[in-house]
Structures are given as C-alpha cells and as structure tokens.
C-alpha cells in the first residue's frame, strides 16, 4: 500500500516538474535521482556488510561451526544466542547469501511497502518506530530552519546593505587591547561570571552603536558575530544554553519532547530551545551566503535602475535584490536536509528528543542492517527529492535559470 502511495506521489511530482520546468528537465532529473538512490542504497548495503568483518570473530564463529556471517545475529540475540536461534536469524536475514541477493531481497520488500522491523529480536515494525520518532526530527528541522532563516535573512540583508558604506568609526584601534585587558582583569577579579557580564556590557552597546548607521563597521560586526557562532560547536551551544536556561534559570524545562497533540503551548515550550540551538548553528552559514550574493546583486544594473526609479530602499532590497540572492541559500538549505538525521543527533541527545538521528545510531550500534538500509534510503529520497525541488524553485525564482536550461 505504501509502495503504491509512493508511486502515485512520484508520478504527481513528475507531472508537476514537467509542467514547471519542461519534460527534458524532468526526465534528466528523475533519471539522475533514480541512479543516485540506487548507488546510495547499494553502497550502503555493501559498506554495512563490510563493517562487520572482524576476522577474530569470524574465526571463532567458524570454529563453533556457525556461519562466519553470524555476528549481527549474536549482537541481536545477545546472551540469549544459542546455535538454533543464531542459525534461524542468519537464515531470516539471508546473511550467508551474497550481498546482491540481500540487496535484492531488501529492494523487493521496499517496493512492496514492507519497511521491515526496527529490531530483529523484538520484531517491532520500523514504520512504528519511525512514526514515533520522525515527527520530532522533522519538527526540529523545520523550526531550526525557520529560526536560522529568521536570524540570517534580516542580518544578511542589513549587512549587505551596510557593506562599503561610510559609517561610524570604530573606536581607535589602540583602545581595543585596553578593552580586552580590562575585561580580562575584571574576569580575574570577579571570576567567569564577572567576565561574562563584562563581555555583555561591552557587546550590547557595541551592537547598538553599529546598529544605527553602522556602515561598514556594522557589516564587520555582523560578520564577526557570524564567525564566532560558526566557530562554536553545536554541542557547546547546546550544553551552554541548556545550562543557562534550564538549570541556572527555570526558563526551559527539560521534559523531553511534547507532541503538538498534547498542547501547542507545551509543545512550543519543549521545542524552542533545541530549535534555537540548531538554528544558531545553521544561521552563520546562511548569513554569509546571503550577504555575499546580496552584495553582488546590489551592484547589478537592475538595482541601479530600481533606485533610479525612486523606489524606496527597503523595496529594492526585499523585492528586487533579495530574490535572486537566495539561490545559493536555497541550495544550502536543501543540502541541510541531511541535518534531519545527522546534524540534529547531538541536539536530540542533549534535549532528550529521541528522534530519527538517535535511532540511526542505535541501529548502527546494534548492526541492524535492514532498518539502516531503509533509513538511508528514506534520507536519500528526501535529500534527492528536496534538492530536485530546489532546482525547480530556481527556475521559478530566477527566470534566467530556466532560459539557460532550455537552450
């Protein structure tokens, strides 16, 4: 049933692509997508099988008159493993067959809509586990993307607008070491808390100072801030904010994930901080990309024409310049679909969200090949599908792309 639904969805998507971007584009993209999926899934199958090769274990298994490939079954069965159950498991999972036979068997299951089990020992359906976990990861991803875009787009537009403009002079360079020395001394006297307060006391006025007619200084400040955030690993951001908002104060409750069905307000309260963490981690990249493209497009003739027509600056920026500047941003945002699984893992752990990322790791640790292959396939489909859609959006956003493609 799921397979039929998926086929229908793919068909509808194909129709839409053909109508929007032309049949040549559609054929080319879909064929590429299918090839990529085949390579990714088969490659995953093969690599997973390679990963279990431990010669010592294989030798020990053969000495015990068990197939050398029994390792994953012993992992699955644990201390309950006996000869009979191990052999049964090997047969069920076809571990003693060539990798292409295993792949074919898996592919056949996928097309028939059977996603298999999440764990061999308990035979709990993978669809159930994904049904429980996927919404959390998806929502985390969506919220974090919204936050990242919400932070990076205004900041990027503003920074690009300020770039190259005369503005406020930064206080004399010789003052900078004095400021740093003073903050350090205060930190030495008052401890880390005092130093943190001192830094805030310096930063806030600085942002205010350059926020108003900051010119190139303001652009520089935004860039510097982006680099600072970019240089802090996501888990440090997560742990720090968790400590500050959950332990030091009681602003955030560490209650894990609360579903929207249990109350939108409670759901929001459970998701805002992890989303902020991931959003902060993503925002500097978006900001930098957007800023660069905006600066380039601000120098284009169409911008000059728009200004010459007397259009207000904000209209020029957001209506004329922002749109063609989002191409790179869209591409990266599309690539970040992979964050749905791997990028959010640490955030899921820190905030106990138990999404797809953490299940992925559990499956890797437990050497559950079939669920892993299925997960990889799903992520690959999402990845390829999203990026295909992004390519389509290019055509819609920038007619020049469509014209190039039709040549």
């Amino acid at each position: 049933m799921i397979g039929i639904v998926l086929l229908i969805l793919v068909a509808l998507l194909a129709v839409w692509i053909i109508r929007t971007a032309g049949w040549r584009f559609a054929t080319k993209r879909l064929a590429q997508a299918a090839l990529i999926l085949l390579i990714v899934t088969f490659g995953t199958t093969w690599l997973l099988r390679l990963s279990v090769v431990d010669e010592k274990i294989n030798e020990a298994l053969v000495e015990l008159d068990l197939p050398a490939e029994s390792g994953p079954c012993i992992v699955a069965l644990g201390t309950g493993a006996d000869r009979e159950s191990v052999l049964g498991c090997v047969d069920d999972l076809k571990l003693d067959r060539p990798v292409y036979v295993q792949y074919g068997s898996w592919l056949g299951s996928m097309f028939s809509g059977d996603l298999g089990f999440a764990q061999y020992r308990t035979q709990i359906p993978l669809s159930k586990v994904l049904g429980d976990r996927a919404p959390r990861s998806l929502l985390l991803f969506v919220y974090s993307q919204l936050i990242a875009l919400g932070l990076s787009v205004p900041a990027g537009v503003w920074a690009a607008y300020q770039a190259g403009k005369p503005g406020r002079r930064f206080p004399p360079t010789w003052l900078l070491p004095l400021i740093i020395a003073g903050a350090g001394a205060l930190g030495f006297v008052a401890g880390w808390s005092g130093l943190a307060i001192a830094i805030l006391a310096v930063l806030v006025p600085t942002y205010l100072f350059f926020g108003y007619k900051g010119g190139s200084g303001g652009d520089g400040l935004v860039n510097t801030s982006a680099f600072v955030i970019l240089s802090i690993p996501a888990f440090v951001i997560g742990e720090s904010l968790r400590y500050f908002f959950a332990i030091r104060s009681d602003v955030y409750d560490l209650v894990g994930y609360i579903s929207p069905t249990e109350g939108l307000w409670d759901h929001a309260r459970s998701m805002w901080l992890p989303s902020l963490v991931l959003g902060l981690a993503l925002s500097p990249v978006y900001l930098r990309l957007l800023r660069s493209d905006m600066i380039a497009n601000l120098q284009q003739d169409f911008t000059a024409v728009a200004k010459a027509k007397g259009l207000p600056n904000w209209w020029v920026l957001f209506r004329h310049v922002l749109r063609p500047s989002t191409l790179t941003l869209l591409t990266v945002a599309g690539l970040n679909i992979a964050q749905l699984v791997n990028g959010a893992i640490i955030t899921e752990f820190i905030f106990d969200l138990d999404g797809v990322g953490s299940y992925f790791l559990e499956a890797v640790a437990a050497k559950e090949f079939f669920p892993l292959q299925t997960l990889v396939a799903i992520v690959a489909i999402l990845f390829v599908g999203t990026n295909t859609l992004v390519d389509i959006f290019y055509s819609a956003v920038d007619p020049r792309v469509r014209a190039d493609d039709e040549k």
Partner: protein
Amino acid sequence: MLALVLFASACGSSADEAVTGAVDEVEDVVTGDGEGDNGAMEEDADDSGMEEDADDGAMEEDADDGAMEEDADDGAMEEDADDGPVYGGTLTALLEAESDTWEIPGANCAVSCITVMRTVAEPLTIVNDAGEVEPFLLETYETNDDFTEYTLTLRDGITFHDGTAADGAAMQRSLQEMAQGLLQGQVLVDLVDGPDSIELVDDMTVKLTFSRPYATFGYNIAERTGWLIAPSYWDDPERAAALMVGTGPFKMVEWTRGEQTVVEKNDDYWRTDADGNALPYLDEIVFRPVPDVSTRLATMEAGDADYNMDSFGENSAFWEGEWLDNGGRLLVPSDDRETTYLMFNNAAPPFDDPQVRRALAHCSDRDEYMAFRAPNDTLANGPFAKGALGYLDDTGFPQFDAEEGNRIFDEIGRPELITYGTTNVPSNLLTAELFVDMWSKNCGLNVEIDQFDQSELITKAITGAFEVFLWRNHGQGNPGLEFVWWHSRHASGLALNFGRIIDEDIDASLEQIWATTDEGELDSLAQDINRKFGSEVYNMWLNTTEWANPYQPNVHGVGVLDTPSGNRAQTGVAGRSWLSQAWKDAS
C-alpha cells in the same frame, strides 16, 4: 553567545563535566556503552558494565535498611516513617535506556527495565533486608529436602490489571512462558521435563521439578523469572510491543518508545503498607528514558525530574557533594556491588597459562589504576563486595610486585603479544592505555590494543574471540546466581561462562551452593570460590562499582517495599530500586 558560554562554564563543575562529558556520553550512547567508572559494557545505553541479568535473574541483596536515606556528607538520616505518606502526585523517573520490549522471557531486562517492571509486576518471592527469601505473591513456598521440587501456592484475592484472577493457572502459564524464553529459559533449564515439569496441583498451587538440586530457585523467582504476568499478555499476538499486565501497584497505561512509559495507580491493589495504609501513594509515575548521562544530571539539577540512576563514575563527586549539599537525596547503596575487572579468556593463549595470569597480576599496579580511573570506588580482591556473602579481606590475589612479575616471566617466557580488547568509548580506551603502559613499563610486555565497536563486545565474549578486556558483573547476593558465569558446563560453544573458567573445585562449590540455603554454608562455599579466584587469577579484580540513585528533596519512600510478612525488602543493588511506595510532599 561567547558570554553565555563563559557564564555557563563559570557556573559549576557539573556544567564543565557535562560539556566535556557530552562527547563521551554521545559516544557512549552511540556505542551503547554506559560509561561507568572506567568504561564497560552493558546492553543498556550508558550504564557501564556487563549487566547480564537474563540468565540467572539479578539478585538485589541490600543488607541496608531501605527506609534509611542517608546524607552521605553529614550522616543525617531521614526516617520516612516519621513523615507519613501523602497521597497523589506524579513522580518523574529518569531511566538510562529504553526497554526493547516487556516480553521478559526473551528480553534483556536490565536496570531500566527492572525499575519499570517493579511498579507493574510483582515477584513470587522477595528477598528481605536480612537477605532471606520470603513469599511475596506466594502464600507459601515449599521445597523438598534436596531442593529438586518446589511447591508454590499463591495468595488469594490478587487480581491482574485486566481484572482476571491471579491463580494457579496463571502462575503455571507465566512460569512456562519463562521456561521457553531465550533468556529466562536458562534459569529453568534444569526442569526435569522442560515446561511440562511445571504442574498445576490445584487452583492456586503449582509444582516444579528439577533434575538437580536448585536451592537458589527462590532467589531466581524474586525478580524477572518470578514476575507474575497475566495470561492476556501472553495471549497477545503482538506482545513484543504490548503493554505489561501484572499485579503491581501501578498499571502500565502508555509506552511511547524512546519518550516515556506511564504507569497509573492501581485502585484495586492488594497490598497495604506496614501501617495498613492503602497503596500506592502516587497517582502516576512517568518513566523517561534519557540515555545521555549528562542530560539526566542536568534534568535532575534543573528539578525537572524526581529520580535518577547513574553509574557514571565521574558524576559521583557531584551526587555525593553538590547534590547533597543542595538538599538532594541519595539512596543508600547495597553492600552487594558489581565488580569491575579484567576478564581473561582462560581457554586460549596466553591466558590459558595460570602463571601468565599470576605474573600479569604482579605487573599491575591496581592502586595506580584506582587513582586515575576509579578514585571514588573500592579496590576489589574478589567478586564479592564487603558485607556480601563470600567476601574475604585477603583472597590470595597477587598484589603489585613488578619484581616478582618479572621473575615469573623470565622463568616461563614472555608472551609474544598480548591483545587487550576495548570498545571504542574514550573512557574504556583510557583504561586500556593505562594497563598497556603499566604492563610494558613494569614487565617489558608487548601489548597491543584491539579497539572494536561496543556492539561487538557481547559477540566477542560469547564466542571467546578475545584475550582480555574490561568487564563488570556479579554482586548478585546469593553466590548461586553466579553459576552460569563460572560453572564449566557453560564454558563451551556460545558460552555464558565468558572467561571459559573450567575448575573442578569451583564447579563443586557452585553445585554445593545450589544444594543449600544455609547462610553459613553459602558464605563458606563462596569464600572457597573467592580463594580459588585469588589463587588461579581467572580474572584481574579491579574495583566495586558504585551506583547513584539520587532523588529530589520532596520525594520519599524510594527503595521502600513492605513485605506481607511485615519485613522490608532489600532496597536494591546496581541501580535498581523500588518506587512502589514512593510519595511526594504536598505541593
């Protein structure tokens, strides 16, 4: 952002540990290894140590009075009885891992699973705070002289959560299902005729017949094997994913894997507390699996959970220091402790030679190990902790003496290469590097580290594809429960006697242990085993493992269970405890 980072890092060591430990803990969770004192192995997420509870049923031998919650810093004691229980409220308990399934016969039901199950299912017998087995769900529990026949009679008037009667047929069914399980079946493997040896005698009575003396059976049915589970659960075709149906003070009403397990008050619960008050006190317990140990710590610190379990050695300073200073509470641990040790493969070179094992022990400065890797734990010279049956101050285990170690190696020759296996968890690797360094510097040994994924640990142990690696086990109270780990009949094939210990004396002692319930005899026989381990150096004992079960200041009754006979049950061991009679101050 930088300011916040600085501010956070300024505000307490727990944050530092949490930050630096986050990578380890993520990796721990990644590898499924619980990072206990020095990194070990467990099939639960971040708990360290090989907790193989399945085959013999873990035994919680807590000699301490479970009602006493001692403030470790100043010795202040809290007497629950003085305060009196408050009815109502929800307790949030953090678990170190999610349970795969509640289908106990085949499940690896470790600490987290046991903690939940103890609220919804009850055992046939229970071990009291004097270490004795007494009936719990059973009215009577009788055995013949040679411990080959057991007659179990249930109490009247107990019902399952689905309203059906807990009677002899249900007990027979439950035990038969256990006997057929992959894991619990190993507890009942000596039944004369398999599950058919579990006979229904009358409406409330079942008889089991074993082919050999099985004196520890009463202890086995004081936990997993003895949990009485409703026939409706066994009949459920999808029981692997089904909610548990038992007789406990709470009913399982929700199980969202990875998110929470919710148990609600059982209004028809049969037992009262020691003062005759109805049980349970709480309306609800919410169990949240949080594999990341730093997240659990942070959640407790933030006051967003009421109870926790933690075996991560690096957190013990926090729980015993700052946590208690701020009014938090810790469950008093049992005398029975798990032991961390280096497990040798005694059936394969080089450790099939007792002289090699002895010499290596002489080459190992365990005090150095303790200082660097387990500063808050106690050095172990055997598998039994102080206060437990079988404990000895001096087991004859070789002490650090590099000169003697070198002398032996000079005499017998040094192994060409020793392979020290370790999981790829950073803490485990640190321990491995310490020993490698020690052995090569002290005795000129050539040692390599073989790193592997956590998931391969069990496989290597079961198949014997190892020479030596770090392990954690034992401390189950009754020494008979160690049978499967030490008896030679479990040393072949896919062996649970991972160390492949084949020792006639140990076999004989274990078999005698299985033929007696006399505490003096058990102690004496266990000491014999302890001395044998000391002289033969089948394992290199390192330290006992300390668990922390912290709970909030407004929570009471943790670890308390009043038995029908008027005694108290043992508080718990290795992170497991009772929440059945917990209550919270009125808010």
